[in-house]
């Protein structure tokens, strides 16, 4: 550690942009190099390899030997015209919208609650995060049990409240299975929304609320006229981020239903997984993965544009 001492000491006097910076920069790049190499290997290479795979007929016979024939956009045509893909895309949209609406609304309400100062605030807020920290496989197995048709607590609850006459097999009936997975995903997502919205609320100066109350505003009015408009940029970025995280959800749904019954919960990531790992149609799977990435990219560009826009306007 100390052997380089002698030749480094004089250079500390050189200001950053000045000459002699090239050698110094080389040292600086060494800090970044390991992470960069790693990302090239485990992120950039797989994504490019996925793109390449999507235009080759990679299947169980050809995938190890590297001898798959080039098929152009055939895989994409095949996937897009597959009714199962269209179904998966539709389910993903339902799943994402259903999850986001409730996660966001409940998360916002909780953020408003925890934005107040009261004894135990910090502890209670931290406890809420547990739902988000649990491995999703664990949460999914809990909800699988709670939605069970035989002895699930949700059937018991609904029957005692008089909302159900007979027990339902929530995750086995095609028209309720998706709802079950959405409920579980909402549960996981609430703390995430809450914790991201809270700093936004905290950044609204108290003086604005005081001014509003001096002007005779009711709490509801100051929420409508002060909180909501000022929260708009934060809320929008939380929603866009939420879209990205929800549209690619795999674990919860897969563990709860395996995509069934009869494709009733085969959201897009599960469809991609099945193509590749159940049917070994790696080429088609890769094409489907690119199509899954498409809406995510569009939203991400929107998100970046938004944060850029915010920075320049503030």
């Amino acid at each position, binding site marked *: *550690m100390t052997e380089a*001492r002698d030749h480094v*000491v004089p250079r*500390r006097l050189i200001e*950053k942009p000045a000459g002699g910076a090239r050698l*110094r*920069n080389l040292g*600086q790049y060494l800090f970044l190099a*390991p*992470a960069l190499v*790693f*990302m090239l290997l*485990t*992120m950039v290479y*797989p994504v490019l*390899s*996925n793109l390449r795979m999507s235009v080759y007929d990679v299947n169980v016979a050809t*995938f190890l030997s590297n001898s798959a024939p080039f098929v152009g956009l055939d895989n994409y045509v095949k996937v897009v015209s597959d009714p199962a893909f269209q179904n998966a895309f539709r389910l993903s949209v339902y799943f994402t919208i259903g999850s986001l609406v409730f996660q966001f609304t409940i998360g916002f309400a*909780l953020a408003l*609650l925890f934005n*107040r*100062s*009261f*004894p*135990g*605030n910090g502890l*209670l807020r*931290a406890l809420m*995060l*547990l*739902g988000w*920290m649990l*491995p*999703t*496989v*664990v*949460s999914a*197995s*809990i909800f699988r*049990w709670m939605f069970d048709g035989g002895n699930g607590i949700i059937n*018991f609850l609904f029957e005692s409240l008089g909302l159900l006459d007979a027990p339902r097999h929530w995750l086995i009936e095609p028209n309720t299975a998706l709802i079950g997975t959405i409920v579980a995903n909402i*549960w996981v997502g609430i703390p*995430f929304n809450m*914790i*991201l919205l809270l*700093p936004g609320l905290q950044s609204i100066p*108290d003086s604005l*609320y005081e001014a509003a109350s001096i002007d005779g505003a009711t*709490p509801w009015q*100051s929420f409508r006229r002060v909180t909501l408009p000022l929260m708009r940029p934060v809320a929008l970025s939380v929603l866009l981020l939420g879209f*990205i995280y929800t549209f690619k959800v*795999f674990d919860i749904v897969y*563990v709860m239903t395996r995509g069934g019954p009869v494709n009733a919960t085969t959201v897009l990531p599960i469809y*991609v997984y099945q193509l590749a790992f159940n049917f070994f149609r790696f080429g088609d799977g890769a094409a489907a*993965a690119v199509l*899954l*990435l498409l809406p*995510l*990219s569009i939203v991400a560009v929107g998100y*970046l544009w938004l944060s850029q826009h915010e920075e320049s306007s503030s």
Partner: protein
Amino acid sequence: MNASRSNRRPGWGWTVLSTIIVIGYLFPVYWMAATSLKTNAAVYASPPQIVPWPPIFKAYVDAVINNPLALRSILNSAIVGTGTMLLTLVLASPAAYALARLNLRGATLFMLLLLITQLLPAIIIATPLFVLFSRIELVNSYPALILADTTFTLPFAVIVLRPFFLTVPTELEAAAKIDGCNQFSAFWRVILPLVQPGLITVAVFAFLMGWGEFLFAITLTTNETIQPATAALNKFIGQYGTQWNNLMALSTTVALPIIIVFASLQRYIVGGLTAGSVKQ
């Protein structure tokens, strides 16, 4: 009016309301633990037994202790989680430092790379990695899982750590260099100890993410002796679908390390979460 009033006197009413909400919210976690302590008869009791009294540990004996594959999978998860944690720290700390401190051309490009990674669905990485690892015979190995998991912990770690490095005064580095440190030893001896809270946050998150990761766990392992606990739990659901007390016993066992880490290092987690997701 509301805001100023609540600032002046503690609102116990809000404490009560929040406590009720948090208890309601965490009911599923309680229900998992409660079910894991029941006999078969108690699981199927109607109306359901809300408090499992007396608690029976038979489900843990059957599903975990007398289940070598489950025990093995928990060990596997500990190895994968720890490996992911170490690799993440080794890669992310110097990178975050470089991005925070040094005038680097291409730094923005690298940040963009990290953001793109956060956008990617794991499945788009899983298939090519499976093909690659099959070719170099790395499927069914700890390194395969650790490498794959670190793909997603690394961007998060760099994004969390960068602001920590930004808060370290540059004078300290200058002083370290006057004292004879080069850039690497200054980083190692002076800077890193100062960002320790950030390192703990990253370590905790990387471990938790490695421990709970699922998609790579089921795609990059086919061998039961190497599968992580999440994959074992998933398989268990398929095999013992309706033995709910056993399933919940295994679920609780998989969740327990998370709950312990969470309880003991909570302040690092809460801070890291907001830093990592909001700031860029």
